[in-house]
């Protein structure tokens, strides 16, 4: 085949293909490679492949180097890269030797395809999110990130408190993934979703004949989590009888199967979570005090989204990227008015609610930009009432005034906290207040 014919074929396929010489400098770079990496051919040619591909294996186990060393091709290795826009992408790469017409090795060839959408869908189906999915730049969250590795290493029982939708399970997974138990199972049990009797057999398992229809032995969630971590969500909803049994697991590291006669050992780390105030339940006599102190060795309090509003823009961007993949759409952003409305809303359902709002917008939006008309009615009134009272469209100045006034009102005039919530520096807030003639609200 002529070179021109080869070029036509290479340029027409969606897979990325590049070749390198023996000094690891790129000698050819097709259109698929341009699309996946976001780097143009003319910028890539002559550069080191590690500066172009930017993969996690470049420094720890380059597959192309291995192929060059062994002469053996490698197929479909899962790799992560950072593209030119700073986005993480999952790709599958294959490598082979690049030889001239006389069979002399003149370099290597690497082909790769973008598997980000498949990975995302796999994650959606399995419901398996990892610590990499925690997105935040807020100061409150950064404090939590500081102590997270220490908690993970400690192997102690941990209680995660936070309103519904604040990401308690994600944090539990992060603790598991950062601990020495990371290669063992992570088992989730939603205690609030199971009736009392069922919860006991689910947690501890049962022996054949323990009750009607118990025809054979069934391992419980503790047995399934052996060596790993069990995450007991909605722990505040469990009955007193299950509380007693859990207390025994925590104290003696043993439990009894329903209908069993000898105790079972449990090498499982327990992480619990609740959206209730357990100390108040203890005072009301609904939760055992001794169990409370057992599970409350380490406590993480996750802030509601209304206290970390500086994260809303990056969360919106994250959800747009995710729903673009799921719904096969190409929405790029939201208008300033939508951002203003989203920042003004208080999110009783927290991040899950924000996610639902963006999904709602995706269903209604047929273009590339999400507008106010696509927002659910629960979010719109905030903007309509406070900014866009008339049919006149809101200007950026009006939006800024409304947002700053709301933030000051919310924080009882405290400018430092208001600035943090708005995601701007305190001096910027002072400057904007002066420029927009905003006075401090009367307390």
């Amino acid at each position, binding site marked *: 085949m002529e070179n021109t014919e080869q070029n036509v074929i290479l340029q027409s396929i969606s897979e990325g293909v590049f070749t390198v010489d023996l000094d690891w400098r790129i000698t050819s770079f097709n259109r698929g490679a341009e699309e996946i*990496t*976001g*780097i*143009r051919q003319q*910028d*890539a040619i002559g*550069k*080191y492949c*590690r*500066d*172009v591909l*930017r*993969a*996690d294996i*470049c*420094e*720890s186990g380059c597959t192309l180097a291995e192929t060059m060393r062994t002469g053996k091709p490698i197929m479909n290795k899962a790799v*992560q890269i*950072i593209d*030119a*826009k*700073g*986005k*993480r992408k999952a790709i599958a790469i294959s490598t082979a030797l690049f030889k001239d017409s006389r069979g002399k090795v003149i370099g290597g060839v690497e082909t790769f395809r973008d598997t980000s959408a498949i990975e995302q869908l796999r994650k959606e189906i399995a419901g398996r999110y990892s*610590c*990499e999915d*925690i*997105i*935040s*730049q*807020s*100061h409150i*969250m*950064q404090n939590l*990130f*500081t102590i*997270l*590795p220490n908690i993970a290493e400690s192997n102690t029982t941990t209680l995660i408190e936070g309103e519904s939708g604040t990401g308690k399970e994600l944090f539990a997974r*992060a603790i598991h*993934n*950062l601990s020495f138990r990371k290669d063992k199972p992570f088992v989730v049990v939603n205690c609030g979703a199971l009736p009392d009797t069922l919860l006991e057999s689910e947690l501890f398992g049962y022996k054949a004949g323990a009750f009607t229809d118990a025809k054979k032995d069934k391992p419980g969630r503790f047995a399934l989590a052996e060596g790993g971590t069990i995450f007991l969500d909605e722990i505040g909803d469990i009955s007193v009888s299950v509380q007693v049994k859990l207390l025994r697991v925590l104290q003696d590291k043993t439990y009894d199967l329903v209908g069993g006669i000898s105790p079972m050992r449990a090498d499982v780390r327990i992480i619990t979570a609740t959206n209730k105030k357990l100390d108040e339940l203890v005072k009301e006599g609904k939760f055992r005090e001794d169990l409370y102190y057992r599970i409350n060795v380490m406590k993480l309090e996750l802030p509601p989204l209304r206290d970390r509003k*500086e994260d809303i*823009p*990056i969360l919106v*961007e994250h959800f747009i990227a995710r729903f673009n993949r799921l719904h096969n759409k190409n929405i790029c952003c939201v208008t300033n008015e939508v951002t203003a409305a989203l920042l003004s809303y208080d999110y009783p359902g927290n991040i899950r609610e924000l996610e639902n709002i963006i999904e709602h917008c995706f269903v209604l939006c047929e273009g590339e930009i999400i507008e106010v008309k696509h927002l659910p009615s629960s979010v719109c009134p905030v903007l309509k009432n406070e900014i866009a009272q008339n049919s006149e469209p809101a200007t950026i100045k009006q939006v800024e005034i409304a947002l700053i006034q709301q933030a000051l009102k919310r924080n009882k005039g405290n400018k430092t906290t208001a600035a943090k919530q708005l*995601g*701007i*520096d305190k001096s*910027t807030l002072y400057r904007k207040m002066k420029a927009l003639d905003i006075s401090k609200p009367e307390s």
Partner: protein
Amino acid sequence: MKIAIPVYGEYVSNVFDFAHKLLLVDVENGKETNRSEIVLESKFLPQRAVQLKNLGADVLVCGAISQELANMVLSSGIIVFPFITGNVENVLNSYLAGQMVKSEFRMPGYRSGAPRGLGRQRRCCRWQGGRY
């Protein structure tokens, strides 16, 4: 002032998110006074950003960096010079000479401007890199 540079051998590491080692250089009056190298153990991004902050870094000179990690580092008040490639000593000397923007150290695909989604304050004061 403390400058942090993720390194791989004698080169700037190609991606900060995946880097294994970090070079820390103390600088006073434009002169290097001390240097040390530490291992970046965790690939957990928030922890990586927090570690950088706890080490007292004022400036991060790095190769590619994901948007998520860049946002976390920037919110710690650290100045970021991203998309830098080349020999560590050359890059460091260039930084100390105030010539960090020399194109020879820019990774392919670099475009001048500001990263999408970051505020005006960061755009002019904190982010010293190109457009995402």
